[in-house]
């Protein structure tokens, strides 16, 4: 039996808090932790089916028409089984939730690095050598690669305007009008994209490094020309994704085509340098932000207009202004996104698309406004919390920005901070502090899950993935809580399209969407247990494997007496999203040291307070927040994909040249999670938290740099050359 639920209104009953097991919300260990710590967890590339061949992708060295003049000679090299140049190979990874093949083809390279052949050989070493020997001749076409040098598209649906911002800017006591830029960035998940494909003549089985299997299955099927029933994808462990594994990737499609052609299993692992090119990057942005405020710093107008880029035919445009629609008040508002069609590698979702760059830049602008008004930056945010959604006029489902700001300020020791910059010096180092607010939209998407309950415990099943987010842990907790089982008796099986389709991991939707499906499946089982006992579900207490109803108590195993019960949950988004504005909130505080001689910035400490509805597992939620904040450090100080000015190729396409934060870049971090219930978030009253931690974090750091040394930086990252230039 299935319980279906559409999220149309607030869930005021809050049955979750009636449950008795006491495991939900707790700080508890990942059930998959020991497998990962002992090397038993197996990722995509680690299957080794009998007779497996190895494929290596060859990249286009330029933009234009592609030929491989020595293809036959390479095919004759030792061990080589095929040189595949199949028109079905994909140009770049599919966008998240595309549900169909991305742009395909190998005859025209749209960007430098596009995969244009797959060389398959008996061993990896033979395949790699042969791929290096494959000559690629490009008939170069001169296509634009600089986002500032083309006339951008201005899609009407992405522009919005209310009131007269120009008039507000003219009449305001205080105004800010500045351009902010962020760089191209890469997810750089530690596991490179990889696939092992097997074809038995009817069914294609693919082990992949993918985040959203129910979509990926259709994308793969569409790419290779099969119907989805004949495709199965497995991804029980995924070595990080952060958006780069949302859509089917080039390795998956190439491995599948090769396996189907050769009738043998084929493995394709992207080289780290492919990872930087073939999978979607975060677009660089240029953001014009205008703030109009009264003399007290209260906003009367707000403008946020961004230029982003992407390849032709890509539907995604970095939604930079997503949070600006509701974060701050102001009757006059102009928001918009323009898209430059250029031939850098494809852009797509990277952790917190939109807010990661949009909130970050806006929070620097808000700091500038605080200084213009002579108002403490925390106080300025407190003065600008809207009563309701400032554009749509609907209420907030819950709004915990004030609580987060006050809590963070208290824990960080913000009060008494001198407002003026350049107040504290230690040797060569200027020391300063800064803050930023965090905003991130919250969504529920369609998801299903099944629970099988038998005498010895329960098994939760869905094709949902755990990309490090903690899906295994929280689904175990949700099911154990509702079914009154110890965690150890609740098993979770994920990452297999043969299981009910979950939401997939992306956009922070997993916990609330698939988690709710698990909750509904467990509720259905509670009803079945209650029916067996002849009582009402609400009268039932399930704890430690026993059921209590009225004054009778019975072991669950006896109630089942050998039977297996199955419950399925199915959640769908309803019109709740139209009735209220739903988001998560937080506050970042940072202390930095800026070297007066070298311009180097060192993090001293960071504090984050976050509110995201019910926290399902404090330990895994805290880790997600740490991750987001540390990504903020990368965005603030080191991360930038450099595109060559002539052909747009990624100059620094490996981990030696693209600098993700390392252990020594990260200071002590303090994360505090506020207690919250959001009734509009479904029966668990929980919202997503995986992306909130990055939103605004880098803004707090640039604001701290300003406070330390007086240099106001508006370009991310604040590398030493930029800091030095701003210091003079």
């Amino acid at each position: 039996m299935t319980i279906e639920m559409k999220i149309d209104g607030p869930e005021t009953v809050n049955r979750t808090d009636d449950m008795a097991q006491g495991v939900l919300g707790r700080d508890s260990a990942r059930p998959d932790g020991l497998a990962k710590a002992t090397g038993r967890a197996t990722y995509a590339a680690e299957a080794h089916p009998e007779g497996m061949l190895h494929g290596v992708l060859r990249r286009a060295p330029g933009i234009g028409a592609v030929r491989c003049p020595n293809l036959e000679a390479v095919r004759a090299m030792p061990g080589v089984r095929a040189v595949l140049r199949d028109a079905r190979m994909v140009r770049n990874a599919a966008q998240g939730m595309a549900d169909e093949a991305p742009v395909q083809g190998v005859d025209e390279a749209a960007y430098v690095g596009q995969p244009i052949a797959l060389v398959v050989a008996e061993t990896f070493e033979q395949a790699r050598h042969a791929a290096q020997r494959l000559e690629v001749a490009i008939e170069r076409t001169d296509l634009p690669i600089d986002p500032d040098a083309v006339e951008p598209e201005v899609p009407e649906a992405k522009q919005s305007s209310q009131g007269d911002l120009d008039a507000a800017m003219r009449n305001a006591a205080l105004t800010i009008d500045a351009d902010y830029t962020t760089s191209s960035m890469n997810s750089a998940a530690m596991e490179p994209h990889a696939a092992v494909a097997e074809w038995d003549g009817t069914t294609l089985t693919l082990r992949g490094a993918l985040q959203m299997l129910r979509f990926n299955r259709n994308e793969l099927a569409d790419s290779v020309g099969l119907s989805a029933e004949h495709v199965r994808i497995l991804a029980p462990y995924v070595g990080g994704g952060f958006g780069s594994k949302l859509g089917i990737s080039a390795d998956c499609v190439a491995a599948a085509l090769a396996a189907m052609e050769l009738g043998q299993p084929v493995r394709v692992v992207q080289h780290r340098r492919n990872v930087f090119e073939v999978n979607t990057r975060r677009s660089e942005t240029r953001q014009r932000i205008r703030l109009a405020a009264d003399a007290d710093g209260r906003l009367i107008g707000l403008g946020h207009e961004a230029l982003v880029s992407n390849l032709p035919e890509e539907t995604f445009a970095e939604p930079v202004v997503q949070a600006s629609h509701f974060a701050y008040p102001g009757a006059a508002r102009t928001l918009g996104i323009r898209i430059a069609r250029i031939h850098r590698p494809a852009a797509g979702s990277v952790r917190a698309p939109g807010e990661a760059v949009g909130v970050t830049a806006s929070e620097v602008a808000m700091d500038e406004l605080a200084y213009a008004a002579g108002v403490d930056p925390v106080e300025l945010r407190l003065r600008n919390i809207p009563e309701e959604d400032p554009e749509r006029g609907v209420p907030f489902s819950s709004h915990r920005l004030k609580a987060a700001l006050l809590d963070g300020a208290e824990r960080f020791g913000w009060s008494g901070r001198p407002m003026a910059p350049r107040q504290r010096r230690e040797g060569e180092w200027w020391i300063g502090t800064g803050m930023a607010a965090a905003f991130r939209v919250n969504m529920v998407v369609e998801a299903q899950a099944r629970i099988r309950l038998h005498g010895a415990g329960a098994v939760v099943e869905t094709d949902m993935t755990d990309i490090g987010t903690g899906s295994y842990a929280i689904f175990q907790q949700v099911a154990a809580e509702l079914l009154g089982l110890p965690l150890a008796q609740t098993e979770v099986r994920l990452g297999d399209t043969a299981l009910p389709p979950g939401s997939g991991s992306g956009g922070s939707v997993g916990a609330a969407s698939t988690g709710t499906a698990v909750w509904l499946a467990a509720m259905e089982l509670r009803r079945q247990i209650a029916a067996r006992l002849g009582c009402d579900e609400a009268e039932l207490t399930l704890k430690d494997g026993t059921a209590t109803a009225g004054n009778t108590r019975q072991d669950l195993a006896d109630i089942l007496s050998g039977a297996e019960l199955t419950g399925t949950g199915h959640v769908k988004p309803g019109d709740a999203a139209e009735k209220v504005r739903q988001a998560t909130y937080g506050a970042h505080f940072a202390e930095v040291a800026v070297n007066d001689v070298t311009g180097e910035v060192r993090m001293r400490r960071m504090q984050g307070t976050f509110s995201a509805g019910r926290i399902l597992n404090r330990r895994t939620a805290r880790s997600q927040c740490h991750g987001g904040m540390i990504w903020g450090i990368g965005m603030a100080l080191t991360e930038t994909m450099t595109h060559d000015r002539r052909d747009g190729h990624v100059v620094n396409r490996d981990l030696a040249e693209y600098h993700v934060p390392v252990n020594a870049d990260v200071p002590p971090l303090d994360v505090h999670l506020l207690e919250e219930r959001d009734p509009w978030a479904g029966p668990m009253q929980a919202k997503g938290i995986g992306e909130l931690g990055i939103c605004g974090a880098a803004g707090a750091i640039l604001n701290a740099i300003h406070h330390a040394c007086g240099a106001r930086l508006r370009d991310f990252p604040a590398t030493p050359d930029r800091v030095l230039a701003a210091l003079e």
Partner: protein
Amino acid sequence: MAVTITVNGQDHTLDLDPRVTLLDALRDHLHLTGSKKGCDHGQCGACTVLLNGRRVNSCLCLAVMHDGDEVTTIEGLAEGGPSPLQEAFVAHDGMQCGYCTPGQICSATAMLDEVAAGWPSHVSASLDCPVELTHDELAERMSGNLCRCSCYPGINAAITEVARRGKTEATE
């Protein structure tokens, strides 16, 4: 080429293409996939194993150069039950996706020995003082192991706890 390597206490004689790295020998030929490949270029530390007791990036080693050597992998550290570091990484959530985790744990295992032996690091105050495992020392010594999930707070808490326990045991 024939090569004999002792892996986790067992001798393995393999006939390998000389281009095979130690990492690929472990993963593809011995099917010990606990050691991970993050970059194949010595940039990330995911492939860290213990070679004759010292930590190395196994993607930078050619297998045929290690005839007669002893290798311990993450699987070897778990023989006879998980090691204190393996348990502490779970307890402190020193992982998210888990892909860097085997490398982090192998690296930390050797790093604690280096500290005990008094090896200085870039941030040590002098070359010959005993090393105290402060946050700065730990962070410096573990910076060859990238974690994109950014679990450094949990990783450091786990290592610190094991280091502290080791110290109390040593003085008892």
